[in-house]
């Protein structure tokens, strides 16, 4: 990635004033200088080795207060894991206090094998996903010039199966006054005649947010390479009462019962997040409703609003225009203030274009409301896949590392693996997501394991390479363990206080957990990313299950955000605990109970990489034994194809 230097808008080369200084000094008297420099380097090396000797350091708990980190959780908790009486559970000791200097080998390992990402540079929101003439299309916010946000255009790629992608030329650039400062997020709508239109937000030359219409130049081109912007753009400008920078991300339109098309656009009024509604017949002129689709106080700006029907009974997806008694509607928004995506299940009233949630206590954007994903996941967007009758969810997965590292490695951000989305017909209250089945075409060899994992143990899982894996697992707490703990009054009820984020992570031992997998771990577990269940006893002796991912020890690097993510997950009577994990280098995606609770995390190990990355199954409960039955597949690369004219010609005629 050395050439990425040339792509930076301003020189950020590593060769700096520093090296110029030393070069100037080295020219004269080479011999003597070389010898003394050599001695100095030896002395320096000795000092370095002495300070690097981590294993002999004292085991004092050291918490470094980090003034920047107050709200971003970059405070490094250099601590000792809770002591265990099992020698297999290694104490992590005092963390390395010297900065980890990224090198190209460690950085290049981070690139994923089967997640969508451009060849280089920055990406953010998914845009206008659709299926047309045999191809899945994906567009995305892209910076063609740097590995940081800026100069945003619409990148474009196509695939037959949502997994194997071919990069195409940029679809839309910022070439008009109405999108001069950014061709931002938008959505596609299919019209009755099978043609399609794209509505997107432009940031004008004066930084005002407006909505614009674009459509394919040639509907006979299945690759939809070229796009035309409507000459009458913008089609919508911020209405009275809405600030010029609070008006973006138009949705896919749906048909109303009167035959008009309807869209919604997120915004805010003071601190109330809102969703505006417009009707149109031609996508060029619109009528704004006086009422909103919905609003929730104190949630701030609603970005990337999404609105769609889900079936109450069936497992297939529904076209955005479907309505009826067997249907619920989802309102989703990305909260600018917190960078979380939230959704709620509710009822849509077509006659006036309004929607109310089934449960107002967990309304869209409230801190307790549902999220597609409890990790690093934002700006998500669904589309109806008419090819297979599914609703599919795309999501922007940003980096959790420093910009210095992003610039050095030359890229930033991924998309999550596309997921199908359906209403959970068993609970009726939440969505269920699952990686699209096409990902299974990447599965290579597999191994099946069945084992009992005793309390306080960590078991290596022999799977050869461990950076590209698909794991499906079933766990069960042994009945004797469960009965004993439920019957034991001295075991304190903790379900009400437990949270993945606040309860100390995977090293804190409870009566019935945590247990799960340590992925991207090195053989001494000095770096590891546990993905696990924590079962907590509740006051009424009921059990509450939590699903967490703990990235706090995922890397020695200290310029990386390392949160503990997760949430509770509904477990119905008679259900075993199931989890699926996709590991793909610097991204880990976990799915609990068939996708009722999902967690995406970004991790940047410095040691647990390449051949040194291993997989472990663990049970850190104090007393309970767990049976684990799981299958681990090696995953192939998706071989995402860089853009080339020959490839485009070849697939055009296919």
């Amino acid at each position: 990635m050395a050439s990425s230097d040339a792509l930076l808008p301003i020189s950020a080369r590593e060769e700096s004033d520093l090296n110029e200084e030393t070069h100037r000094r080295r020219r004269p008297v080479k011999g003597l200088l070389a010898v003394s420099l050599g001695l100095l380097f030896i002395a320096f090396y000795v000092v370095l080795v002495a300070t690097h000797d981590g294993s002999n350091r004292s085991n004092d708990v050291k918490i470094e207060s980090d003034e920047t980190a107050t709200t971003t959780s970059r405070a490094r908790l250099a601590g000792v894991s809770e002591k265990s009486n099992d020698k297999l559970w290694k104490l992590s000791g005092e963390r390395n206090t010297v900065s980890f200097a990224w090198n190209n080998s460690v950085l290049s390992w981070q690139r994923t094998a089967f997640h969508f990402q451009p060849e280089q540079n920055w990406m953010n929101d998914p845009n206008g996903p659709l299926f047309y003439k045999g191809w899945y299309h994906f567009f995305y916010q892209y910076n063609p010039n740097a590995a940081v946000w800026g100069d945003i255009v619409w990148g474009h790629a196509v695939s037959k199966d949502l997994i194997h992608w071919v990069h195409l030329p940029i679809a839309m650039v910022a070439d008009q006054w109405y999108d001069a400062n950014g061709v931002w997020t938008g959505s596609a709508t299919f019209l009755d005649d099978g043609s399609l239109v794209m509505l997107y937000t432009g940031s004008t030359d004066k930084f005002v947010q407006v909505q614009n219409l674009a459509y394919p130049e040639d509907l006979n081109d299945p690759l939809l390479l070229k796009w035309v912007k409507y000459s009458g753009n913008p089609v919508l400008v911020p209405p009275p009462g809405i600030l010029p920078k609070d008006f973006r991300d138009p949705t896919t339109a749906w048909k109303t019962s009167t035959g008009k098309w309807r869209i919604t656009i997120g915004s805010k009024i003071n601190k109330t997040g809102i969703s505006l509604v417009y009707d149109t017949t031609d996508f060029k002129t619109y009528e704004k409703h006086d009422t909103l689709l919905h609003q929730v106080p104190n949630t701030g700006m609603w970005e990337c609003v999404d609105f769609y029907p889900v079936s109450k009974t069936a497992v297939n997806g529904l076209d955005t225009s479907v309505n009826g008694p067997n249907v619920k509607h989802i309102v989703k928004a990305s909260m600018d203030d917190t960078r979380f995506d939230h959704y709620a299940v509710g009822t849509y009233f077509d006659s006036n274009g309004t929607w109310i949630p089934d449960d107002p206590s967990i309304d869209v954007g409230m801190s307790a409301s549902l999220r597609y994903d409890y990790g690093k996941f934002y700006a998500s967007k669904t589309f109806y896949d008419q090819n297979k009758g599914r609703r599919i969810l795309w999501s922007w997965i940003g980096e959790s590392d420093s910009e210095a590292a992003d610039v050095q490695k030359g890229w930033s951000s991924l998309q999550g693996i596309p997921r199908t989305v359906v209403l959970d017909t068993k609970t009726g209250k939440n969505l269920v997501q699952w990686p699209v089945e096409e990902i299974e075409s990447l599965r290579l060899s597999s191994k099946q394991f069945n084992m009992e994992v005793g309390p306080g143990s960590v078991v290596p899982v022999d799977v050869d390479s461990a950076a590209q894996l698909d794991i499906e697992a079933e766990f069960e707490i042994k009945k004797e363990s469960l009965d004993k703990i439920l019957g034991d009054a001295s075991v304190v009820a903790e379900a009400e206080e437990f949270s993945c984020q606040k309860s100390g992570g995977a090293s804190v031992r409870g009566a019935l957990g945590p247990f799960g997998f340590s992925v991207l771990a090195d053989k001494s577990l000095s770096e590891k990313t546990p993905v696990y269940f924590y079962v907590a006893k509740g006051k009424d002796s009921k059990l509450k299950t939590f699903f967490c991912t703990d990235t706090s020890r995922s890397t020695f690097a200290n310029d990386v955000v390392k949160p503990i993510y997760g949430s509770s997950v509904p477990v119905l009577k008679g259900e075993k605990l199931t989890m699926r994990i996709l590991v793909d280098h610097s991204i880990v995606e976990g799915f609990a109970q068939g996708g009722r609770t999902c967690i995406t995390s970004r991790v940047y190990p410095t040691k647990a990489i390449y051949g040194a990355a291993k997989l472990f199954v663990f049970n850190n409960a104090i007393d309970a034994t767990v049976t684990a039955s799981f299958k681990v597949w090696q995953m192939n690369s998706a071989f995402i194809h860089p853009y080339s004219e020959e490839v485009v010609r070849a697939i055009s005629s296919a």
Partner: protein
Amino acid sequence: MATIMGVAMGDIVDKTCKQTPDYTLCVTLLRSDPRSSSADTVGLGLILVDKIKELGYETLGQIVMLYKNKLMLRRPLHECNLRYKTIVDVDVHTAIIAIKGNPKFAEGAIVDAGVEASVCEGGFPKGQSPLTSLTQNMIKICDVTRAIVRMLL
């Protein structure tokens, strides 16, 4: 009266700085720039991003000087050089372009600037950093700037 004293009570600088974690630092930085009296929130944010840039360059100058003399600290100084170059070239640039159009990306860049400074400082063995007051300063300014940028969300 209040204006003659050069301290306008209840003006935008005062109101804005009250919502940041360090009122005194915020007011000192902003009032040192004559543009602050007629600026909007975006303008105030840009003034502070300028301060980040200035401090970044000042620190880089220090780093270059120290590199000549403090041979034992060259490794962490080299890392600091990389980190501070990121601040002035990347973070500041992103913050400036994003603050006008899409402030959440400016927030990310400013948070990163604080992290880069912190990582630079953390690279020195305990008690041996020659840059502590500069890095601490950067972290504080980033905290204040971030608070102002968040007002734009």
